[in-house]
C-alpha cells in the first residue's frame, strides 16, 4: 500500500505529505485528506495509467476511492479478473 500511497501523492501533487501521513483507513475525501472532485478524476487516470484498470462508471468512484485500503482492494480484485 506504500507504493499506492506514493503514486497518489505524485498524481495529486500532495507535496507536503509522506506515505506514512496517510492512514490505510483514513477517508481520502471531505474530512480526511480533503481531496476534491478533480482529484477523484485524477485517481481514475492513475488506475488507468498504472494498473490498466478502467473505471467504467464514475458513480463507482466514491466507493472505490473511500480510503487507500478500498482502492487497493479494488485494484487487487480487478487485476485478478483481468489475468
Amino acid at each position, binding site marked *: 500500500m506504500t507504493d499506492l500511497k506514493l503514486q497518489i501523492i505524485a498524481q495529486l501533487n500532495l507535496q507536503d505529505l509522506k506515505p506514512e501521513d496517510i492512514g490505510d483507513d483514513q477517508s481520502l475525501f471531505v474530512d480526511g485528506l480533503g481531496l*476534491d*472532485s*478533480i482529484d477523484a*478524476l485524477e485517481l481514475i*487516470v492513475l488506475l488507468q495509467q498504472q494498473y490498466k484498470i478502467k473505471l467504467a462508471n*464514475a458513480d463507482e468512484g466514491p466507493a472505490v476511492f473511500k480510503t487507500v485500503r478500498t482502492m487497493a482492494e479494488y485494484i487487487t480484485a480487478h487485476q485478478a479478473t483481468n489475468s
Partner: protein
Amino acid sequence: MSNKVFIAGLGAISAIGNNVAECLAALQNEQSGIGKMQYLQSVHKDKIPVAEVKLSNNELAKIAGLSGTKSRTALLSLIAAKEALNHAAIENFNSLRAGFISANSVGGMDKTENFFTEFLQNNTKGKLRNIINHECGSVTELVADKLGIKNYISTISTACSSSANAIFYAARLIKNNVLDVVVAGGADALTKFTLNGFNTLMILDNKPCQPFDENRRGLNLGEGAGYIVLVSEKVAATLKNNPNIILSGYCNANDAYHQTASSPDGNGSYLAMSGALKKSGLLPQDIDYINLHGTGTNNNDIAEGTAIKRLFEPSFPKMSSTKAYTGHTLGACGGLEAVFSILALQHQIIYPTLRLQTPMKDLPFVPETIFAKNVKVKNVLSNSFGFGGNCSSLIFSKI
C-alpha cells in the same frame, strides 16, 4: 450616468442556424442542433454527440469573406458580428466612436491543435501560419479589422461567462461616454482540446442533454457566436428601426468555491442575479423569463436552481435552457443567449427546454417544456456561469 443603453442589432450563428432568422425558426419549431459529429475530427466521433454549426470551414469562409485558413472561431465571430452590425444599420457609423468587445475561451485552438499534431511528429512540419491567431486576443483583432472598428477593441476570457461580461463591459463604456456604439458578444469553435477536456471531467452526456431533468447526465458541447450592437440613447434616437430594448441590469460575482464546480447553494449565481436585479431597479416578480445557464450537468443545474429558489420563492418566472438546442457554446453562450433573450422580448415568445421529462425533485419549479407565443415578456434575465467561479447575469427590458 443614468443614460440608457439600447440594443440596436443582433447577430447569431449556432448549430440551429447560420443567422438570427434561422435560429429563431429552429427555436419555434423545437429543432435541436445536437447530433453526430460531422466536422470535428475526433476519436470520440461516434460516442459523443455535439452541436456543430452545419458548415465546413470553407463554407464559413465564403460567407465571412475571409480565407479558409483562418481559425473557425474567427470565422464564426465575423459572421455573427457582421450580421449584428448590418442589422443595426447605423448610417453614420464611421463618424461614431465604435468598439468591439469580444470573448472566446479557445482562441484559434482549432488551428493550433492541428499544427501540434504534425509538429510533434516532425518539428520541421506544420505551418506557422496556422498558429498566429492562437492567442484569444488576435481573433478579436482580426474580426474588428474586418468590421472596420478601430477605436476600442478588447478581449475578455473568463470561461463560459465571457461574452456576458463583454456585453456589460460594452454598456459601461457607453454609459461613461467613452463610446457611442459597441458590438459585443463572443464566439467559440468546437475543438478536440475542449472535447477531451470536458470528457476527462466526466460531464459530457453521450446522448442529447436534458437540462434541469432529474435524470440529467451532463452537457453537450456546441459552437457558435452571438453578438449584439449596443448604442447610446443619443444614437438610438437616430435609428430607423426604433430600438426599444435596453440592457437594464447586469452583475458579475465570484462563487469562491472551486475551480470548476459550483457551490451547492449557488452563492455566486445568487449574487449575480440579485446584483443584476438591484442594478435594474426591478423586483424578482418583474422578471417574466429566465434564460437559464442550464448546462445539463448535475452540479450546475442544482446550484443554479437552488439560487433561483432562494431569490424568487414563492413565485417563479417562466424559464428554460436553450442549451438543449445549441449545446453549451462556452465563450459564445452569453452572447448567443443574449440574442435569444432579446428575441423573446421582441416576439413575446418563450422557448421550451427540449427533452425535459422528469422535473428535478429538489426544486419547487419546473422550466417550460413547450414553445409559447403571445406571452407578456417585458423583462428577461439571462444567466451565464463559468469555470473559475465567474458568474454573470444580464437583464434586458422592453421599454
